[in-house]
């Protein structure tokens, strides 16, 4: 038998994945061995793991910038600027979620280790998605991420809403996976490979006389990805899941899952299938427009803040899709900027929601926010910053993000989408105003509503998110530079 040739491994490029998954495994092992685990340990462990990854991305970034993108392990994985940037975003989201999780778990009296383990694993899945150079690997990463999140959504074992949210998420998520896979299968048939580099190479060098299979594949793939990033009309799960799932998990869904999903979408659509951009761009544009309009519009009709933010996250997905549909370097960079900013906004916002939600994680109606400014001016102020950021008010990161995607759209000359986007932004602004009105302009139902103590971890998250949002709004240069250096490149496998 001929000796088996093992493929090349670039270990430093695998570091985030190894640290995250290894951290998860180790934490699980420790938890299953030690009787009385110090209560703070899992959280501290997760935060430290996240920070290690975050730190590791710095030298990785330098290395990628100096050595250029690389593909390894048989052309299955690649490391490029986008990988590192998305990894960093995911690491931030992990840290934030972990910080939110502990006070939450303690308040709800829930057992905790698994949440952290799943969080780390799910982040590992996200990293895989961001670095996948093969459709199958991409799919596996997606599944690791999703399955972990299905479980995390159900983790509030005392609330049946939590489990029902998980079930809905699961059924529709699996449905989407099937579409995604079918799309991958057809693309495989049309191009002869699942390696992204091969696919793009093949499509660049071959003119398909009959491209029906390819187009069907792209369409199905798009449906699957649209489900994952909750784009209209594949968004039906989002509000229910956001409402039912534990709030810190929702923060992760909004920040981490969305980031990974869009990273995957960019890799597949823009990078791999970029040669056929003219085929998928209109579809993505329609998805984007529909998401923005429906997300913003339906959000207006909600009375539950968590649902409002769920719909607004749909609208945000629409905005991010704008960057995708531009199918240009500027669009891609803008997507990364948006993802970074949205991560801050989402984690910060859901940190506030977690706090206000109170014991039982149920007080999410607008009523719960009435008079918040009087009870807890600082919390209300921070939420104001975050909401204004989501609305895209100038001098917040939200504006920088929206500006980026819009610029990309305008550069691509699809003005109608840009107009829809701005109309949706105006409608969405009303949503955030409603919350502001409740906080500032309405009296609380009863004066007995007591101050809820904001735990230290939550404070850190909210503080960092607000500071980050404002800082990016005022000094966006660094982030913009990084994002434009992070545009993904395919290297042959």
């Amino acid at each position, binding site marked *: 038998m001929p000796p088996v040739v093992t493929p090349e491994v670039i270990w430093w490029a695998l570091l985030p994945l190894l640290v995250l998954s290894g951290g998860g495994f180790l934490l699980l092992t420790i938890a299953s061995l030690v009787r009385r685990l110090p209560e703070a340990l899992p959280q501290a462990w997760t935060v430290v793991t996240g920070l290690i990854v975050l730190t590791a991305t710095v030298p990785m970034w330098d290395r990628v910038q100096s050595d250029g993108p690389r593909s390894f392990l048989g052309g299955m994985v690649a490391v490029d600027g986008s990988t590192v940037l998305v990894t960093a975003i995911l690491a931030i989201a992990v840290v934030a979620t972990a910080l939110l999780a502990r006070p939450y778990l303690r308040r709800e009296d829930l057992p905790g280790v698994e949440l952290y383990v799943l969080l780390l694993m799910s982040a590992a899945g996200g990293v895989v998605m961001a670095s996948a150079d093969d459709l199958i690997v991409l799919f596996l990463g997606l599944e690791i991420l999703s399955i972990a999140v299905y*479980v995390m959504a159900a983790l509030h074992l005392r609330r*049946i809403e939590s489990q*029902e949210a998980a079930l809905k998420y699961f059924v529709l998520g699996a449905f989407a996976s099937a579409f995604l896979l*079918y799309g*991958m*299968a057809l693309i495989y048939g049309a191009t002869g*490979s699942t390696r992204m580099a091969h696919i793009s190479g093949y499509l660049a060098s071959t003119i398909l006389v009959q491209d029906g299979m390819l187009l069907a594949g792209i369409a199905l793939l798009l449906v699957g990805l649209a489900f994952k990033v909750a784009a209209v009309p594949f968004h039906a799960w989002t*509000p229910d899941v956001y409402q039912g799932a534990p709030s810190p998990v929702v923060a992760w869904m909004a920040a981490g899952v969305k980031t990974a999903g869009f990273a995957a979408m960019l890799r597949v659509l823009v990078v791999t299938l970029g040669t056929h951009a003219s085929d998928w761009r209109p579809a993505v544009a329609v998805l984007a427009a529909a998401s923005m309009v429906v997300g913003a519009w339906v959000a207006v009709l909600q009375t539950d803040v968590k649902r409002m933010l769920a719909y607004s996250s749909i609208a945000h997905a629409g905005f991010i899709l704008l960057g995708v549909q531009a199918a240009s370097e500027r669009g891609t960079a803008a997507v990364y900027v948006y993802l970074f900013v949205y991560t801050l906004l989402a984690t910060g916002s859901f940190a506030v929601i977690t706090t206000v939600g109170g014991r039982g994680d149920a007080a999410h109606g607008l009523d719960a926010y009435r008079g918040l400014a009087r009870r807890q001016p600082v919390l209300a102020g921070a939420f104001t910053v975050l909401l204004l950021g989501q609305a895209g008010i100038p001098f917040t990161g939200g504006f920088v993000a929206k500006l980026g995607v819009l610029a990309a759209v305008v550069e691509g000359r699809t003005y109608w989408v840009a107009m829809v986007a701005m109309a949706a932004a105006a409608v969405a602004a009303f949503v955030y105003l409603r919350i502001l009105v409740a906080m500032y302009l309405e009296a609380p139902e009863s004066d007995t509503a007591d101050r809820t103590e904001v735990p230290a971890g939550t404070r850190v998250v909210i503080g960092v998110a607000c500071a980050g949002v404002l800082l990016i709004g005022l000094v966006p240069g660094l982030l913009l530079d990084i994002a434009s250096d992070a545009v993904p490149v395919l290297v042959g496998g």
Partner: protein
Amino acid sequence: MVVTTSWYLTLAAILFSMGAVGLLTRRNPLIMIMCIELMLNAVNLTFVSLGSELGDLGGQLSVFFVLVVAASEVVVGLAVVVAIMRRRQGATVDDLSVLGG
């Protein structure tokens, strides 16, 4: 009659559509998950037939991973169903109306 790849692809497409329709019409979460399995099987069939037409092992390799994923999904999905059903007997997805819009 020679069995061409198109036959397989057609069969898979029908199977996939049936799974999708089932998922959209049935309300029992267990049967919905089964419908997802139908869809995944259609995908598997597609992968294998395309692979054999292309003379490439990639299709079969992909199926291998799809199988793993399918198994994992089912495990988690059923665990969620169990968690719900333990508290509420005989729920259908329509009964899951706590989270109404």
